């Protein structure tokens, strides 16, 4: 068996709200293999985003470990964490695009950070924007794009650096259902045709049914796992 792309062992996260501890994660064990398409379901506040932030190396667990391709994330320093994040494609619920940059500018930025040259990243940006169906909108700024288009830009950005896997936190949470199904088709296609590993957090049962695998979370724990 190969090393899983993502593995968490007994992952716990406790936030302090003033003096009140909030146990966002209470011991999550999860394995995601290469090429997997995992949907994480669960009510609001069940710890889905917290889990995704840990996997995406954006935050540190209180207890337990995250392994990315077998590497213990807790052993990495600040710079190594930054390097790791470059290889993870994070897609946020609120898109998180830089407003003053065009669609292409946003996608290029993610490649400029690891130091890719101008012409290469221009070419690659056009390529991934075409993949997500935004060929005609490359020079538009986020404010000039619809919610669905913005989310496509965010996905294009996540794809640009040939990420090890995509993390999507309710990518369809802020767009209408028709646009959402377009996004889902896109994500499904990426998984199917390009073998991109995908972890997606969603409320949407329809999206979950498209995934290869779903896990159900409640109160910081995985309570149910099923393979579609």
């Amino acid at each position, binding site marked *: 068996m190969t090393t899983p792309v993502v593995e968490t062992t007994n992952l716990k996260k406790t936030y302090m709200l003033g003096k009140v501890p909030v146990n966002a994660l209470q011991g999550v064990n999860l394995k995601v293999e290469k090429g997997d398409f995992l949907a994480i379901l669960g009510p609001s506040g069940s710890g889905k985003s917290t889990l995704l932030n840990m996997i995406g190396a*954006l*935050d540190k667990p209180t207890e337990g470990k995250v392994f990315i391709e077998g590497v213990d994330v807790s052993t990495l320093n*600040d710079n190594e964490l*930054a390097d790791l994040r*470059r290889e993870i494609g*994070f897609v946020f619920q609120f898109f*998180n695009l830089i407003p003053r940059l065009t669609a292409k500018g946003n996608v290029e930025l993610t490649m*400029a950070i*690891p130091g890719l040259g101008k012409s290469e990243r221009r070419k690659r940006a056009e390529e991934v924007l075409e993949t997500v169906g935004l060929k005609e909108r490359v020079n538009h700024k986020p404010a000039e794009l619809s919610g669905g288009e913005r989310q496509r830009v965010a996905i294009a950005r996540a794809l640009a650096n040939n990420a090890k896997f995509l993390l999507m936190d309710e990518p369809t949470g802020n767009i209408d259902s028709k646009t959402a199904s377009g996004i889902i088709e896109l994500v499904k296609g990426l998984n199917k045709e390009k073998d991109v590993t995908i972890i997606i957090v969603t409320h949407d049962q329809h999206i979950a049914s498209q995934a290869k695998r779903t896990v159900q979370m409640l109160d910081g724990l995985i309570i149910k796992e099923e393979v579609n």
Partner: protein
Amino acid sequence: MKVSDVFSYAFGAIRLRKLRAGLTTLGVVIGIAAIVALLSISQGLQDSITEQLQTGFATNTLIVSTGGGFGMGPGAMTATESDFNLLVNYTQIIDEIEDVVMSVAVIQKPGCHIRSGERELKLTVVGVDFAKYANIYSSTFEAESGEIPLDPENETVVVGKRVSDPWKNGTLFCDVDDGVEIVWTTGTLFDAKNETYTGHVAAVLKEIGGFGIGPSDSSVYIPILQAQSFFGTDECDTIIVQLENDDEATIESVSEAIDGAFSGQVSVTSSTAMLDIMSSVFSTVELFLAGIAAISLLVAGIGIMNIMIVSLMERTREIGILKALGMKSRTVLSIFLSEAVIVGLMGAAIGIASGWGLAHVVARVFSGGGGFMPAGDHAAAAGGMTITPVLTPTVFLGAFAFGLIVSVVFALYPAWRASKLKPVEALRYE
């Protein structure tokens, strides 16, 4: 991330907030402009004063007075309040001293009126021995038209350029061979007596442009003997002493000898001492002005810091995105510092240019251009001194460096705070 990409990202961020960036830059511009203008003017002023002192009074001269007048130099405050008077014929005593080439007595009477035809000017009449005076001040006591009579007949007058041509517009007040009347009012206010001296202009001096101790553009010169009888005095105001050379030892020994000859009742000032004092006064003034300008830059720096902290709040989410995309802390730091560098460089460049322009405007106002000497009975005290602002490489580079350093130093803290933001927290920031 490549340096060029860091800069273009920083530049884009600045362009987004043009007004704010403009105002921040303006702070730096004003500070730098003030520094450059002040320093280049004072440098120019210093240069022109030094130059004029050097032409106006050769370095191998001493000035003897009864004190007060030139009592600036070290050891020059020896004059007392006794009724010691400096007499014209004391030149004979001074001439005996070793290393003295010659000495010339100068009688100066300010506030005399000179009349030519219908017109009248109020100015200083100077009585000197033309031959000796011309010898000491060979480069300035020199005729432009006419000839300075070395053995003057009675009632000869030599006038400065500004006396002949006070309005600088071709309308001459008097010219060579014109007859002029000098009126000197003596006595008290209620019992005034006018003495009149009638003479003819033998020579007009070439323009000196200085205000030094030597000849001046706005004085009228009459032979010393005439001055003595006209003003009814044997006293003079100063005696100029020409030395064999300008060695410090010579200056010292002659100064001491003169001091001794008059039992310490005169003050002796050397021209080199004057120059030294002038330049030390100037460095003090310069330092003071630069200090004021530096404070304005400091204020600009605090402005930069303030704006960057505000901008940091606004951009917290952006920083979160950058970090989530894998940007390193030091790159975030360099983006923020680059913004400060851009502001600093632009501010310094614009500041130097506008400071330089401002210096020229101020210099022109100071230099007086034309019409400085109004018609009527006011005569220009100083001739038309011209100041040419001087921008030394030190000031130029210093201004650049200072603008840059101030911007960067005050950006350090906000930039550091930005770089330390945690990605999740920054992303949660509304």
